């Protein structure tokens, strides 16, 4: 039918093929097939772009978008004048991915030199089969920059913080320290962890080829730096207490010691030191003894420093007056099977002299006039047997047994501070009752602002009682009292000594705790200082001899530092002649 011989002569338009009539469905089928291909493509792209776009979006973002962490620093701890006690500064830690770190011997040598580690040790770490190794932590930032400048493969850096304690061992027990990851482990660092801790923020950015940030994308989460904490401590007074205590512990060959200085007007703790102590900047080879914050976590039987409370309760309930005569002869008193004795036998003493001479017999006789419940209520009111609510780790409540289980001998011994155990901080707090007009104020370790509402005080004794006891305490420091060494020239001082036997395994050992708690200036007390010396090993062990001078040193320095005017009319102190007669 078709003449192919003449094909060359044909023009396309005349092609006989075109003249064939194909069935119409063939072209329609093709058109449909192509259209449906388009539909599938559009559908797929709609699916990828709109419905299920997470995966591709993520892949795309990862090409140019980076999430950066904005680090936040831990809050500072400062004393009441703003002197820094603890502060963080950024450091670098250098790490390696051993499988990626292929260094030439020369590079290894350079790196070892910068990191100050042994070259063999470095090579060993780089050869380890772990996926990630720290090469050195806590490097100064400038060294970190030098390491970065070497541009070594597989070696990277992280930012971390290091905490410095400029005042070192002086404030170690109060401030405490942190572990590696900014976690408070002791002291204020632990107690105020949630406030000190900073929360790092984050931002996502677009970076260009050179690694420079081009713009922010999305929202920025700002970092929250930790809050700074202002303590009530006074660095100068803290130093005074520290140096005096350290000296005393060495001089009297004691095992340990503690000192607390409290502002009686505000309840602020101005100084709190313990010996032995440690350097928080270098915590290698620490022993438990060094770490213990004795003033807060150790309780001891305080001895005679508790007598004023017994006497105050007796005065308060009207059983005795300051001049009531108590017969303390012959220096011994037998209750049941036990005998109470005085270290120096006394005759008849007034109640005031019982405090001045520190007579155990006298105190026991006065206590016998009181009911057990009365005494318990009073001890409880001045805070014995309760934690002091400073929010400090390891605070102890001490031991004050319920009055119903007291035997008469126990009530007698408790009157002079045995059979009851307290911490030094409790003792200091209890004495604020005499430093104030018979009321108690809660202690605080943080700075109280002048415009803060005065915290609620709890009345314990009447003003009259507090003043009378204060006068008795003044007698104890004067000639004829137990602690003439606690005198401070120019100031009226009131205080009480304590020399207690230590309990070891339920028995009283021939070891002592010498203590002194006092207040000054007695005309309008501002400071309470409590000193405790544990196991003085020298010839002297009485509170008046061992703790008294420490008290005088700390108190006189603190009064001077705070600029408190002397309250003795200066004539006594002014003429050198009269001073020599004393």
């Amino acid at each position, binding site marked *: 039918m078709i003449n192919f011989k003449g094909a060359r002569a044909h023009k396309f338009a005349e092609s006989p093929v075109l003249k064939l009539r194909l069935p119409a469905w063939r072209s329609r089928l093709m058109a449909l097939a192509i259209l449906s291909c388009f539909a599938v493509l559009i559908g797929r792209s709609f699916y990828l772009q709109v419905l299920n776009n997470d995966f591709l979006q993520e892949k795309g973002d990862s090409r140019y978008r980076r999430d950066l962490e904005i680090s936040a620093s831990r809050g500072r701890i400062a004393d009441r004048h703003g002197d820094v006690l603890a502060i963080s500064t950024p450091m670098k830690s250098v790490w390696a991915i051993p499988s990626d770190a292929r260094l030439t011997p020369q590079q290894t040598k350079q790196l070892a030199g910068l990191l100050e580690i042994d070259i063999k040790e470095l090579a060993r770490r780089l050869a380890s089969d772990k996926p990630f190794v720290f090469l050195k932590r806590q490097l100064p930032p400038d060294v970190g920059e030098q390491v970065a400048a070497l541009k070594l493969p597989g070696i990277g850096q992280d930012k971390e913080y290091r905490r410095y304690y*400029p*005042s070192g061992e*002086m404030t170690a027990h109060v401030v405490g320290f942190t572990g590696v990851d900014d976690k408070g482990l002791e002291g204020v660092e632990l107690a105020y962890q949630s406030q000190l801790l900073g929360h790092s923020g984050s931002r996502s950015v677009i970076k260009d080829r050179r690694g420079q940030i*081009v*713009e922010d994308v999305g929202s920025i989460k700002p970092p929250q730096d930790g809050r700074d904490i202002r303590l009530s401590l006074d*660095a100068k007074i803290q130093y005074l207490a520290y*140096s005096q205590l350290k000296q005393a512990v060495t001089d009297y060959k004691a095992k340990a010691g503690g000192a607390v200085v409290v502002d009686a007007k505000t309840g602020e703790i101005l100084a709190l030191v313990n010996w032995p102590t440690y350097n928080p900047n270098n915590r290698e080879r620490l022993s438990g003894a060094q770490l213990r914050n004795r003033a807060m976590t150790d309780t001891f039987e305080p001895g005679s420093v508790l007598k004023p409370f017994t006497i105050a309760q007796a005065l308060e309930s009207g059983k005795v007056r300051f001049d009531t005569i108590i017969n303390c002869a012959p220096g011994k008193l037998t209750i049941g099977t036990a005998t109470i004795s005085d270290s120096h036998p006394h005759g008849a003493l007034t109640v005031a002299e019982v405090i001045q001479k520190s007579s155990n017999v006298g105190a026991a006789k006065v206590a016998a006039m009181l009911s057990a419940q009365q005494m318990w209520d009073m001890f409880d009111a001045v805070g014995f047997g309760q934690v002091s609510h400073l929010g400090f780790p390891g605070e102890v409540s001490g031991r004050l047994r319920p009055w119903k289980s007291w035997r008469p001998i126990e009530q007698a011994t408790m009157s002079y501070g045995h059979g009851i155990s307290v911490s030094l901080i409790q003792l200091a707090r209890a004495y604020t009752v005499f430093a104030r007009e018979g009321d108690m104020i809660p202690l605080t370790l943080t700075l109280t602002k002048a415009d803060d509402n005065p915290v609620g005080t709890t009345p314990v004794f009447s003003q009259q009682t507090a003043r009378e006891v204060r006068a008795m305490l003044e007698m104890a420091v004067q000639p004829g009292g137990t602690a003439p060494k606690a005198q401070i020239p120019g100031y009226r001082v009131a205080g009480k000594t304590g020399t207690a036997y230590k309990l070891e395994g339920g028995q009283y050992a021939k070891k002592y705790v010498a203590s002194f708690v006092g207040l000054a200036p007695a005309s309008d007390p501002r400071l309470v200082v409590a000193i405790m010396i544990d196991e003085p090993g020298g010839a002297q062990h009485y509170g008046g001899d061992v703790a008294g001078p420490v008290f005088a040193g700390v108190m006189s320095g603190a009064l001077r530092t705070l600029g408190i*005017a*002397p309250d003795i009319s*200066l004539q006594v102190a002014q003429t050198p002649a009269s001073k020599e007669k004393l």
Partner: protein
Amino acid sequence: MVRFNILLLLAAVLCALSVVTSQHQSRKLFQAMESEQERAKQLDVEYDQLQIELSTWATSPRIDKIAREKLKMRTPEPAKIITASASRSEVAR
């Protein structure tokens, strides 16, 4: 009609160019801000380090030592202290 179209085209090109320049400007400014912020951070760190240094130099034991040994200072005797006070009664002399 053609002229109007050319005018529109020109306007579009101008707009496009200005978008490019402003984008460029904004990136430059952003980078400047970025580097200033970095500097601020650096200065913060330096401030902290200086604070550490300051408080290391100003520790009480060091002051005490220098005052006593180098400057030969001492606590005055009580007899030599005159207390100045607003109230007449406390002035002893």
